[in-house]
């Protein structure tokens, strides 16, 4: 038997114990004797760690080493005498590359028409421009260096205006120009023989955060399409194509990246003639890219497997040929569904760029570590004890970039309405 209730429109408030801070605490932290003990113990441990952490941070720590590193953190030895020549006038080149970035951000802002893109564009530009007003020198920071940093603001606005008022204001153009800007950056950094002001700088001296970012951007941009091709290849009905893709993916996934990097340095010179034109940094970049492509391929394949077979059937039943079914129906949905996994892969790739220390490159991590442990002043090693500060600083730098990627991917997911189906 049920009790039949009369229809009512009054809603009763939830019981008192379910609401408010006290209710929450009781329900979540002190619901039983065991939970109470757990809460007290964990709370005590956390408080203890926090106390000593803060004590160290505000009393004992000394971040002068970061200040001394200055511009080295950003570009490594790029502007050193060995790399750039006696004039040491190469610092403007990465700076102009940065201007290209803000220009592209400005264009993206105009095309996206505000929202998240606008906020990111403005935030990045303002932070970069503020570097001009640092009280100490980044890298023999004359007025020209400071001016070029401030110039990021007009660059952003110029990009915005370009996209807003010319025919360049579409995502297609932004994508094309971004690739052009990246290639231009590489030429600018590498230099052109015979052009005054653009004396060639050996790849050996590329370093600092610049190196990490270049490797990550190139890796992400190139590995993504390769990953898609591999994923499709692995699902191909042509046995040879399928076999090649499986072998490629399993080889690159089955060997640690660090081993692959070693092999690229040690084995490749054995296999190719001595003056083979592939620089060791390029070889490392290719390895990182292919490694990432193998993982991206499996992520995308996962997304393709998860699709309801009815999707492709419906497309085929409408008369769409196979390649259009893949391009217009399967891939867009598959990629959308695996955005978190792909971004995770890109974050891993960014962090893995610090492994280029294997081939003797000074990325931001290796450079800072080496500086702290071997920088000599007046016959002393003044920063030897400051490796803690160095690594905490590096952790914060990496975290900011990785969290930024995560945040953007979260916003993209929300924008595309993933998970609302």
């Amino acid at each position, binding site marked *: 038997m049920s009790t039949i209730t009369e229809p009512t429109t009054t809603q009763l408030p939830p019981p008192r114990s379910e609401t408010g801070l006290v209710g929450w605490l009781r329900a979540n932290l002190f619901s039983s004797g065991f939970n109470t003990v757990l809460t007290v113990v964990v709370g005590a441990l956390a408080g203890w760690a926090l106390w000593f952490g803060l004590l160290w941070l505000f009393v004992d720590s000394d971040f002068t080493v970061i200040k001394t590193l200055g511009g080295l953190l950003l570009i490594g030895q790029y502007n050193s005498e060995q790399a750039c020549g006696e004039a040491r006038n190469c610092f403007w080149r990465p700076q102009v590359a940065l201007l290209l970035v803000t220009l592209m951000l400005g264009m993206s802002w105009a095309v996206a028409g505000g929202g998240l893109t606008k906020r990111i564009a403005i935030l990045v530009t303002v932070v970069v421009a503020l570097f001009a007003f640092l009280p100490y020198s980044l890298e023999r920071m004359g007025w020209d260096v400071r001016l070029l940093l401030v110039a990021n603001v007009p660059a952003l606005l110029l990009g915005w205006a370009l996209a807003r008022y010319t025919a360049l204001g579409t995502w297609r153009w932004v994508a094309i120009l971004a690739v052009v800007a990246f290639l231009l950056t590489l030429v600018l950094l590498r230099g052109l023989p015979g052009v005054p002001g653009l004396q060639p700088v050996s790849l050996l001296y590329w370093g600092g955060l610049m190196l990490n970012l270049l490797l990550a951007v190139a890796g992400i941009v190139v590995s993504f399409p390769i990953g898609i091709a591999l994923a499709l290849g692995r699902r191909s009905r042509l046995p040879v194509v399928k076999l090649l893709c499986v072998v490629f993916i399993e080889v690159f996934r089955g060997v640690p990246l660090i081993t692959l990097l070693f092999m690229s340095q040690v084995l490749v010179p054995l296999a190719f003639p001595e003056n083979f034109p592939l620089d060791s940094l390029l070889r490392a970049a290719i390895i990182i890219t292919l490694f990432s492509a193998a993982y991206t391929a499996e992520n995308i394949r996962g997304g393709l497997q998860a699709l*309801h077979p*009815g*999707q492709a*059937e*419906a*497309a*085929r*039943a*409408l*008369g*769409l*040929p196979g390649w*259009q079914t893949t391009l*217009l*129906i399967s891939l*867009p*949905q598959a990629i*959308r569904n695996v955005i978190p996994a792909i971004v995770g892969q890109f974050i891993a790739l960014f962090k893995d760029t610090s492994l280029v220390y294997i081939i003797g490159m000074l990325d931001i991590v290796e450079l800072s570590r080496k500086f702290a442990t071997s920088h000599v002043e007046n016959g002393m090693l003044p920063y030897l004890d400051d490796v803690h500060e160095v690594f905490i600083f590096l952790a914060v730098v990496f975290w900011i970039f990785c969290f930024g990627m995560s945040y953007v991917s979260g916003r993209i997911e929300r924008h*595309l*309405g993933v998970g*609302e*189906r």
Partner: protein
Amino acid sequence: MTNNGPMDAVEDIIVCRDVHKWYGNFHALRGVTTTVQKGEVVVIIGPSGSGKSTFIRTINRLEQHQRGDIVVDGIELTNDIRNIDAIRRDVGMVFQSFNLFPHLTVQRNITLAPTKVRKMPSHEADAVAMELLERVGIPEQADKYPAQLSGGQQQRVAIARALAMQPNIMLFDEPTSALDPEMIKEVLEVMRELAESQMTILAVSHELGFAREVADRIVMFDEGQIVEDLPPDEFFNNPRHERVKHFLSQIL
């Protein structure tokens, strides 16, 4: 086979001769022979696993038959991709689970195939889409995404999507089985209107009321074979086979 199609000039639009299909060792279609005339409405019923869905899926080659011939609108179904694509352009299909493209708007779901396959200019395709949405009664939903629509509305969009290719034949694979009772009616209404417009229709459906009113023939499948093929009146009142009586007693 019956020959009382509604058209004056009798034209066989689907001809199947001794069609066989195996899934591994399972013999799913065991020699299906039938003919459908232009403008005819054929409703296919049968117990689950009897091969009725498999059969209509062989007609646009979503399933491949391994023996026998299928000729659709004068084109023989072979492994030739061009023939398959030509037939698919000519045959619309509606699925039990709608299979709308969730990442595209309702309008884009409908215009995709006409613009990509028939190379129709997009403004023209948009106009066609709106016309079809009017016809299925939901023009106001054009800019929404499939997930924002009710099941009945989604199935009506799926019908509009198939019609946008201007097919000569429509296949329905249990179009109302995934719908709540109050939504079945709105979909059947659209199908009824389609049947009245002289469209050739092959529908797997257990809506016997619909079959009785709209169908020219009811075909019953059992164990991969056609066991009955009669006009609705005879089918319900005077079935020749025991198996039909048994089946009807189970679902009525």
